[in-house]
């Protein structure tokens, strides 16, 4: 099941972090997401050197740690989405779909004229949409 979802801005500033597990403290997830940022940067700069300029791309499994798996996705505007989950067999298509919907929810939240780009996302509607996507994702993977 999904334990944590995070959105990081283009200056590597955290915009949103939500954990879906009650017992662990969020600090651990902050740490995990922070480490994954390094892996993301490495992946992006590697693909540039190879001549392929991939972006808006699903970066795939970033790294497995303890019993968590961390997936990454970066949009053209350098907004990074990080997903931390304990599921062991996740279909690639499911995770891609999840990130697509997350990206859509983010774009809607950023379109708010009162939202200051670069500041944390405080919209309750965005939090609700993220929870909905997480809930429906759980069902898809279990089936």
């Amino acid at each position, binding site marked *: 099941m999904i334990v944590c979802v995070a959105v990081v801005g283009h200056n590597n500033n955290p915009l949103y972090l939500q954990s879906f597990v009650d017992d662990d403290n969020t600090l651990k997830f902050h740490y995990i997401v922070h480490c994954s940022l390094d892996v993301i940067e490495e992946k992006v700069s590697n693909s540039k050197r190879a001549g392929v*300029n991939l*972006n*808006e791309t699903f970066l795939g499994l970033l790294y497995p740690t303890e019993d968590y798996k961390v997936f990454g996705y970066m*949009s*053209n*505007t350098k*907004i990074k989405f990080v997903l931390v989950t304990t599921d062991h067999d996740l279909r690639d298509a499911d995770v891609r779909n999840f990130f697509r919907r997350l*990206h*859509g929810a*983010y*774009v809607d939240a*950023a*379109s708010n*004229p009162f939202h200051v*780009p670069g500041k944390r996302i405080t919209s309750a509607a965005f939090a609700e949409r993220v929870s909905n996507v997480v809930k429906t994702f759980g069902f898809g993977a279990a089936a």
Partner: protein
Amino acid sequence: MWLTGPSGRANLRLEEAGFGVGIRMLELLCHRDKANRRETRVLGILSFVHSTVWKSLFGKVADSLEKGTEHEDEYMISEKELLVNRFVSVPGGMGGFNCGTFVAGIVKGVLDGAGFPARVTAHFVAVEGQARPRTTILIKFAEEVVQRDARLA
């Protein structure tokens, strides 16, 4: 000249309003465009602005995109009848004011969000044979953008 005086403040506020729209437009268009590549070349981002952004804002691509002859870092997007200028008449007292500054702000927001800082301004250019002047959006890229583009070439 453009930023001073009573019309200067109005120009500045219009530009800021357009800037916010520009950044959000970039996020939205990048999300909707399925097979999108992030633009790293100046020409790439300019043609993105000229076609995709214009099409989603005004329903048509811009009339023309030209490279400035005098300076390496200047480009111009022209429109015969810019929507914001079409139904607005500027009183004589506010000589320097051009409603196209709002669109210039949008372009600036898109370029800035994509990593191409630039100074963008709107100007009227008189055209013979046409009663109303044509509007030109002048884009002057920052020094680092020109250097980076030369390095990538």
